Structure formats: C-alpha cells, structure tokens
C-alpha cells in the first residue's frame, strides 16, 4: 500500500468520525471519494446505468447506517467495497431469477452497458453489441483493480473528472496523483490486453 493510501485511510477515519458526530458534509465527502469506484462495481453487475446508480446509492445509504458498527474506521474503503460487491451480486441474482421467470424487462437503449448507443454515426447492430461488450470489459477491469487504483481509474474514466478535482477528493499531491494514475493505466492496459490487442506492448 502506498504511504498516501495509509494517510487516506486516516482521512477516511476522520470523515467517518465526523459523520458519526452528525456531520452530513463529512459523509458527502466520503461519497465523493468513492462514488466512482462503487458505481463501477455496481455497473459490473447491473446492465443498466440507472440500476447501477440505484445500487451505488443504496450502498452509501447502507454504509451510513452501518457506520457505527465499523470497528476500524481507517478500513472504510475495503468495508465499503464489500457492501457494494454484496449489493451488486444480490441485485444480479434477483435479476437472474426474474429473467428465469420471464419477468425481466429489457434495459432501455443507451442505458449503461446494455443497449449501448455509439456517441456518433449509425453503427450496425453488430457494432452496437461489440461496443457494449467493450464497455462491459473496461468496467470489469476497473472494478477489479486494487482499491486505490480502481478509485482513481473510476474518477478519471467513469466520472471524467479533471486532475484538480481528483486531487481535492483524494487529498493527495499532484505528483502522487500522477503516479497513481500511471500505475492504474498500466494495470488497466494489462487487464484489457484482449480487448485492445494493439495496445498490449507494455514498455513500463
């Protein structure tokens, strides 16, 4: 774990304590720090962006209620991830059950990883399927990164934040952010070598 990650754990712990003392602003800050990563975890399991957003929001609601039972507030990140993973899997299971019963509704076009609509042009059906598949693979790759890299990759690629905002949310230096983004990129490229075979040559 990077030294910054340790201090981020302490920052999380301070935010958790402030939340427990009734400071809603501190909880909002915790949301900002992890919403991208949690949302990516939810997207990995939920085909529709709106479903994923519901799951991610529910994750934070549950975290809020469970905060008093969190023994080590510095371990908030890992704890939150477990809540997110469990919620996303529960949602996936119940969706699978609904589909088995023929009750599942098809996700809306252009929503999340299913029914992907290309931003421009008029792609054919097979292209649409291919793009949706790429999306799914990228999200899965981001969600499977170690927590601090998943966090920063989600901020950059899912939330499309600029560096200043990432620095603010993570409370780390520009230098530390740059290094972390670089490592996250290398890991992502490795994880996506089948998706982007032309980019597999890793010279880092």
């Amino acid at each position, binding site marked *: 774990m990077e030294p910054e990650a340790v201090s981020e754990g302490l920052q999380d712990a301070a935010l958790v304590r402030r939340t427990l003392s009734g400071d809603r602003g501190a909880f909002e800050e915790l*949301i900002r720090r992890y919403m991208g990563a949690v949302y990516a975890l939810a997207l990995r399991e939920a085909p529709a962006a709106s479903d994923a957003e519901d799951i*991610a929001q529910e994750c*934070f*609601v549950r975290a*809020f*209620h469970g905060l008093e039972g969190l023994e080590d507030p510095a371990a908030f990140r890992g704890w939150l991830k477990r809540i997110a993973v469990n919620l996303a899997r529960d949602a996936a299971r119940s969706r699978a059950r609904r589909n088995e019963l023929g009750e599942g509704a098809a996700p809306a076009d252009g929503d999340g990883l299913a029914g992907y609509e290309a931003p421009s042009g008029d792609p054919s059906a097979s292209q649409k399927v291919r793009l949706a598949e790429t*999306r799914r693979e990228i999200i899965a790759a981001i969600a499977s990164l170690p927590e601090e890299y998943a966090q920063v990759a989600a901020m950059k*690629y*899912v939330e499309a934040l600029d*560096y200043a905002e990432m620095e603010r949310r993570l409370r780390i230096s520009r230098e530390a952010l740059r290094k972390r983004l670089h490592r996250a990129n290398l890991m992502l490229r490795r994880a996506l070598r089948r998706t982007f075979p032309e980019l597999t040559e890793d010279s880092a």
Partner: protein
Amino acid sequence: MNCQETKERLPALIDNELGPEERAEVERHLAQCEDCRKEKTRQEKFTTSVKISLEGLKPSDRFIKGVIEKLPESAAKEREAEAAAARRKTTISLIVAIVIIVLAVAIAVIHAARRKEVPLTPAPRYPPAATVLEQSGQVFMRREPLPGTSEQPRVALPEDVPDNVMVETGADGKVRLTLNIPAPYGELAVLENSEVWLLRKPDGILCIKVGKGSAKIATGRPRVAVEAVAGETWVVADDGSKPPKKESPQSGGPSGQEKKP
C-alpha cells in the same frame, strides 16, 4: 528527464494536465526517444478508446443528493435528539450544581445559626407532638413544629453538633430537630418556656440537658418517658433498650462540653 519519469507523465501529458515547463521537458525527451514516443502513442490510443467507450456513463449529477435524500430524516433527528439530550444533561448538571451550592450555603447558614440559640416552635405542655417520620434502618426522632402558642422554647446546640442530631429548616421557616438515636423511635418534647441543650460528652455520647423549664424525653421500645427539669442532664442508651438515664453531677456529665444558650 529519463524514460521512467517521462512515461509516468504521459497520461498527464495526454490529459493536458501538465504545466508548461514539465510539458516542455517531456516533449524534449520524446523528441529524442523512440521507445517513449511509441509508448505515448499506445497510451493515447488507450485513453481515447476507453474514454469513448465509457462516454455518457458517468453517474448523474444528482447522485450525492439522491443518497442524502435516502438517508432517513429520523437518523438525522435521532442524532439531533442525542445532541439535545446531551445539552439537556448539561443543563441538568448545571441546575444540580446550583442546587448543591444553594444547599451548601443554606446548611452553612443553619450551622451558623445553631451555634447560637435556635428558636423552636412553641410546644404544648404535654404530651409533645413528636412524630416518627422514618422507621427504616435507623430511627429518627423528629420534633414537629406546633403552631398556636406564643412562647418559644429554645434548644441550644453545641458548637460541635453530634452526628446523630439533624437540624432542618422546614418550608414554614421553623426549625426542626431530629435525633437519630439507636432506638425504635423516640421523642423529645421541649416544653413551653423551656430551654434544652443537646450536648456531646467527651466520649461522643449524646446527652440532653435542660437549662430552663422542663422537657419530656422518651424512647420507643420499651417506651420510657421521663420529664427532665432544669439543671438535669440525660443520656439515651445507645441500643435504645434502656430508658433515658439521668446523669448525676458527680459523674462528670457534659459540663465540659456545655455551651450556654
């Protein structure tokens, strides 16, 4: 700038997040390093591909607000209530502290008062209106103030009030005397126009001396009542089983501890 430093800065360069000086340094290195140029191209394509693939996927602007709205008001209210309870607790502590201070002052005043003569309420001739108020554990003999008579007998208390004597000021402003003696219950009646002193002998035993007029002293079981007259000193047996005993002047009595009213 070497290759490692350059490669670390490539994502920032591509994201247009490098300062002009660093950017110039990276570009100088790229101009002379083919390996890093190839890496830059790969990173550029990767970044572009991922960004395009995930375009429009970011969580809605209402994400955080949505979470906050889903947090039940009750949770906030519970915490508010806890905070209010804490404030109330502080207030109560403050009130208790004030009450304690007021009581301390009142006790000090009473203590000061009973070093002098303490006027008691008028008593009937006999029997006295002594009422046993408490009988659990130790027994208290309480002399109730009685209205209706004009003369006020007096009870004089020693400087060092025995532990088993309690003096209280009632809501009526009258002084009540309580003797805590080890007897089922007891009575002390100070008769009209009389003065009684509560004294403690050197051995600590409480005794009652009548300075003027007379008083009625009684124990509970066995109930023995005696009338003590001026100049007499009486002690009450510690175990309450014996009647009040008259102390002879030769026995030493409480004279050494006596305080004149």
